[in-house]
């Protein structure tokens, strides 16, 4: 038995294949959009996964350190280490800022870490970890920095000694890891003009610049430039301890806010990025509907353009089932080509997006079935039209 659908496709294969390619690109865009949405959520989650923490300890009554500013004294980690169930605790600072790279600015999230403690990148792509306690940096590859390159943060130059990947802030800015003390300084250090201005203001204040109290104004100035704060303490719990119980203990006795991974995910996904994620999600829904509509119309018009041939088939006594099968097979074939093309192009152009695009296999499988279902559905419409074709049309009607 000869395949009617195959014969028909071969008859005008160029048109068929290019229609499939066009649809494929459309599906590729839809899959990419889904990937952008997934990537956005994943950016938020990867931030939590990569920090290696089980509990985030932040300033009381804040949603810090990512969703809200949080400030803690940097010796709090010592008292946390004494609590039962706490295996490791380390200070961390987070600050999104522009850093200077030779003659252009790069937007990064500067993360202050203690080498060898929670918070440092878990894996590297190249280079090494921090070995000096100052002026070294590990950069996410998305920042576009090369190993050995120097970046300027405030007034100091940092050498990029290592590269990592997928270390991004919840808004997708690549991270730049630097030693904690440098990061503390960078967070609170003002530029020289501001420091001189501050000194002059202090000196002009008669309450602070009193005659007969030598050294007072110097002491006040010195106390202003010190930074003893961090944004969060990352805690890893000892094996066998439920993080929620340890976090509860910290909240209760240390009068600090403590979030477990689940709490933090909730804050990031359902609070911090919820609006922008819903924005993308809404667009994804519309795009999916539009794609479905376009696929249906194309299959429908493709059938309509073959009215004369169908009429001939009817005239020579072809059964309705055969005609319906031909149209369905063509529609499904088109869907298959479109999906394969779409998935391929989406995967190929995904790495070139500036932010992370996560193409989940589950999304691809769902997309496949959706495309097939839409094609089948659209073909029923076309089949209905085809079956209504009057055989007389074949001979001039």
């Amino acid at each position, binding site marked *: 038995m000869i395949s009617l659908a195959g014969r028909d496709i071969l008859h005008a294969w160029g048109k068929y294949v290019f229609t499939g390619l066009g649809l494929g690109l459309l599906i590729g865009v839809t899959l990419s959009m889904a990937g952008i949405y997934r990537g956005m959520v994943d950016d938020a989650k990867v931030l939590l996964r990569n920090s290696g923490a089980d509990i985030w300890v932040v300033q009381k009554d804040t949603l810090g350190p990512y969703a809200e500013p949080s400030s803690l004294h940097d010796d709090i980690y010592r008292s946390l280490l004494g609590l039962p169930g706490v295996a490791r605790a380390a200070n961390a600072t987070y600050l999104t800022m522009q850093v200077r790279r030779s003659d252009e600015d790069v937007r990064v999230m500067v993360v202050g870490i203690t080498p060898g403690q929670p918070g440092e990148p878990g894996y*590297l792509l190249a280079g*090494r970890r921090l070995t000096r*306690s100052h002026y070294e940096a590990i950069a996410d590859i998305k920042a576009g920095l090369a190993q050995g390159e120097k970046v300027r943060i405030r007034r100091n130059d940092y050498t990029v000694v290592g590269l990592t990947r997928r270390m991004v802030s919840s808004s997708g800015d690549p991270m730049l890891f630097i030693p904690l003390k440098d990061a503390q300084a960078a967070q609170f250090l003002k530029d020289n003009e501001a420091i001189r201005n501050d000194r002059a203001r202090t000196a002009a204040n008669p309450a602070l610049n009193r005659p007969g109290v030598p050294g007072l104004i110097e002491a006040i100035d010195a106390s202003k430039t010190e930074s003893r704060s961090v944004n969060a303490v990352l805690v890893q719990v000892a094996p066998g301890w439920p993080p929620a119980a340890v976090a509860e203990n910290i909240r209760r006795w240390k009068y600090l806010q403590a979030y477990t991974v689940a709490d933090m995910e909730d804050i990031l996904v359902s609070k911090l990025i919820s609006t922008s994620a819903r924005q993308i999600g809404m667009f994804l829904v519309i795009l999916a509907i539009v794609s479905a509509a376009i696929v249906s119309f194309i299959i429908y018009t493709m059938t309509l353009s073959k009215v004369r041939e169908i009429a001939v088939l009817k005239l020579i006594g072809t059964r309705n089932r055969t005609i319906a099968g031909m149209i369905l097979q063509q529609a499904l074939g088109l869907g298959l080509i479109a999906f394969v093309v779409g998935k391929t192009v989406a995967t190929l152009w995904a790495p070139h997006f500036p932010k992370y695009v996560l*193409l989940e296999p589950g999304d691809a499988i769902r997309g496949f079935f959706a495309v097939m279902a839409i094609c089948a559905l659209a073909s029923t419409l076309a089949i209905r039209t085809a079956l209504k074709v009057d055989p007389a049309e074949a001979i001039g009607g």
Partner: protein
Amino acid sequence: MKLPTRFTSRLGLILLGLGLLTAFAFVVLRNGPLAATRVTLAQVEAQELRPAVFGIGTVEARHAYDLGPTFASRVLRVRVDVGDRVEAGQVLAEMDPVDLDQRLAAAESAYRRAAYAVDSAAAAANEAASRKALATANAERFEQLRQQGFVSQEAVEAKRHEAQAAGAAHAASQAGLAAAGQDAARLRAERAAVGEQRANSVLRSPVAGVVTARKAEPGSTVVAGQGVIRLVDPASLWVTTRIDQARAAGLKIGMPASIALRSRPQVPLAGRLARLELAGDSVTEERLVQVAFDALPADISLGELAEVTLALPHQPRALTLPNAAIQRQGGRVGVWQVSDGRVRFSPVATGAQTLDGRVQILRGLAQGDRVVIYSEKTLSEGERIKPVERLEGNGR
């Protein structure tokens, strides 16, 4: 001509389909859940290990002198300016002596007066001595005349009394002379005290050095102990360095150091660890050490930032790995070892670390063992991997 067309189009279609399927398969295998994690591998190597400690410091003077008056006063003159080299004993500044000169004159007058009083007492003593001698001679003569019977006993006794009275007057005048002497000594001491105070209002350099600060100008009033001039001994400059406590093990006095000044980071200067402070900074969790220059550079400035690298004793042969290979799994430190294209975590004990990122492996691995150094994501036990040359700039 019909057949070839049909044939070509079918072939074209098949080729197109195959191409598409190949691209699809490539994409699925390379990026999907079926793809193996790409990693780069490194071997455990035995090599020389030169561990070092890094710290940040500022150039400070070992000896700095803050000179000020010992009593509240007004600055009269400041004789030196910042940057001046001064000798030991050189006058740096003068405080307004206010009434000290007048008090010195008064003390001088009082002393002179006392000196005259001593002269006067001495003259009185002489007179008393002379009177005593005359009275004693008279009394002796009357004793002899009495024995010859020329004078009455009463006259003799009167003369004896006169002699005794003259003796007493002489003793009194001697005491008066001594008292006047003591008075003069007291006033001389008082005059010297005022002179010392006057001299104290002049600030002199205790050592040869360089003036680094001129904190008060003529006319301003300073309280006791407030600095007017600050000087340092320029030969005693060193770098007070802060070393992270986590890396401060193994420091010893005399260790060679390399000092990179902020003004010339490309030209590191040689130095030695000169002092290890017993008291660290518990707030910043740092240890304080002082590193002295082997040869003091000429145009160095106080307070300049310096990066100090202290060389720890080197180990001629040790098993090492890049520090990027060291991972942490469930509280254990170890590395990902490769067998049959899969990774497995093996705990290791690490030792010294060099600044260029090599870590000594004390236990857990043998020379030539292959371990994962870089990976494109966090690895888990038993994960399939695909070793590649390099990950950086390699797509994805």
